[in-house]
């Protein structure tokens, strides 16, 4: 294995961050520039959004269900079993819904973007696109970023709702909680800050996932092996960055809304 000097490694890392920032910046700037590839964006929205519904529904349902099961065990010790709906609701909407949906979409779509664009890169299709007078960031990156940001927002809402349903199934059929009691506490416990936090996170996560997936794809090299490497790196990087962004953004919002 080749040994890389720390200085070269640092230079490469800084360069990669700079290139990522440029790509991310251009992907946003392209939204306001012509030409706009609306049909490509809709196609990506279908692939990323509609295609991710089954995995998001399953993840949301089982997460909500296990959350109810675990929390009931603790709440029962304090005689607060009736608060199960509240706990599931707050956990799903504020944290688990956006994060787990983001991770699922990162696993499914960051890899898809990296492999698709990576294959195009190593077979010179990206160069061919440039040679034909098309900006690949406009044609390939921006539609994916826009589609992911929008669709992750709706996927998170679906995940939250399905998670609450999963929690309800356990709370009602296993724990014997009343339907009205579960849904009432689940609904009443949510305040504006919770909903704001839960619905703005997917916008950030969608941007992170798509730009990282596209970045690794657009910079793939080294044939099919390089495409495989880019795909793996994209999923790992997107997942880790998503969790880091989640922590920082949660801390920021808690300060803004004066929550603890």
């Amino acid at each position: 294995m080749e040994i890389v000097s720390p200085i070269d490694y640092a230079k490469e890392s800084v360069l990669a961050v700079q290139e990522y920032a440029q790509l991310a910046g251009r992907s946003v700037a392209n939204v306001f520039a012509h030409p706009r590839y609306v049909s490509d964006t809709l196609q990506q929205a279908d692939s990323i959004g509609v295609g991710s519904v089954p995995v998001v529904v399953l993840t949301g349902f089982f997460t909500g269900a296990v959350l109810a099961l675990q929390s009931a065990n603790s709440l029962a010790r304090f005689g607060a079993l009736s608060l199960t709906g509240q706990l599931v609701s707050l956990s799903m909407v504020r944290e688990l819904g956006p994060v787990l949906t983001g991770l699922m979409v990162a696993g499914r779509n960051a890899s898809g973007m990296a492999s698709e664009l990576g294959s195009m890169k190593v077979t010179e299709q990206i160069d061919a696109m440039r040679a034909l007078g098309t900006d690949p960031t406009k044609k390939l990156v921006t539609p994916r970023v826009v589609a992911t940001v929008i669709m992750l927002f709706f996927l998170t809402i679906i995940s939250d709702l399905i998670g609450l349903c999963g929690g309800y199934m356990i709370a009602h059929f296993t724990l014997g909680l009343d339907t009205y009691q579960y849904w009432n506490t689940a609904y009443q416990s949510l305040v504006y800050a919770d909903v704001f936090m839960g619905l703005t996170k997917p916008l950030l996560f969608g941007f992170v996932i798509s730009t990282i997936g596209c970045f690794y794809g657009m910079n793939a090299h080294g044939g099919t092996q390089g495409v495989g490497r880019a795909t793996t790196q994209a999923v790992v990087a997107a997942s880790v960055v998503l969790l880091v962004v989640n922590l920082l953004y949660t801390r920021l919002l808690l300060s803004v809304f004066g929550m603890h």
Partner: protein
Amino acid sequence: MSITPPQPANGHEQERTIVFDDVAIAFDENVVLDGISFTLHKGETKILLGVAGSGKSTILKLALGLIKPDRGRVWVLGQEVTAMREEELSDLRRRIGMVFQESALFDSLTVRENVAYRLLEEHVSPEETEQRVREALRFVELEHTLDLLPSELSGGMRRRVAIARAIVTQPEVLLYDSPTGGLDPVTSTTIIELVVKQRDVYHTSALLVTHRLQDAFTMATHYFDTQANEMRPLPDNKVNLDTTFVILRDGKVIFDGTTLELARSRDEYIREYIS
């Protein structure tokens, strides 16, 4: 700072399509081109020869502005490519056709969509697009493949579709990157026939990269007979005067001249190369 390409020393001005002036580029520590200078005139077909890794394909990418040189300047159709931003290059690239080494067809699009790509980007009407796509595919004799995907075509057919995609907008200059690389001799001749047809029918300026000497000499010694619709040898051992050669060695141009000058060259390396 000069904003026009260097003028010919003899003052004789002929319209220049591509000018390379002292261009150098290195990838990491590997110097690929080191002070390359040559000119492609209007209507001329220049064949770039050299061993694998001598920087032939890099020259085409530099001409398109896909990569930037470390030193020197490149002018294409009167514009300095090396000083242009990516957005400005897009407009210039619409006037250039490029045939990539491995065709580089968009694998998720049909042959029709591949050939029509640039027309669709320019919002040409569907009727005109269909007509021009069919015309380009008829030129390469692949009109029957309209609805096929690139994966359903043979290597030679993919190369012909790539030529159709490059010529569909009737560009002012064509860049061929090893159009016969990896093909059998019969298919290679078919591709060279198309290049000769484009040269003799439309008189498009072209840079052609190849390491197959027989292709280069076929181009120099043949013409396209439009009435017979086939490539034929030039009579009386004549050569095509619009076809010239550049030979690269160790990142430098060691020959730039006509077929006859190449045949008369006394350079030992060149004589060995063309023998």
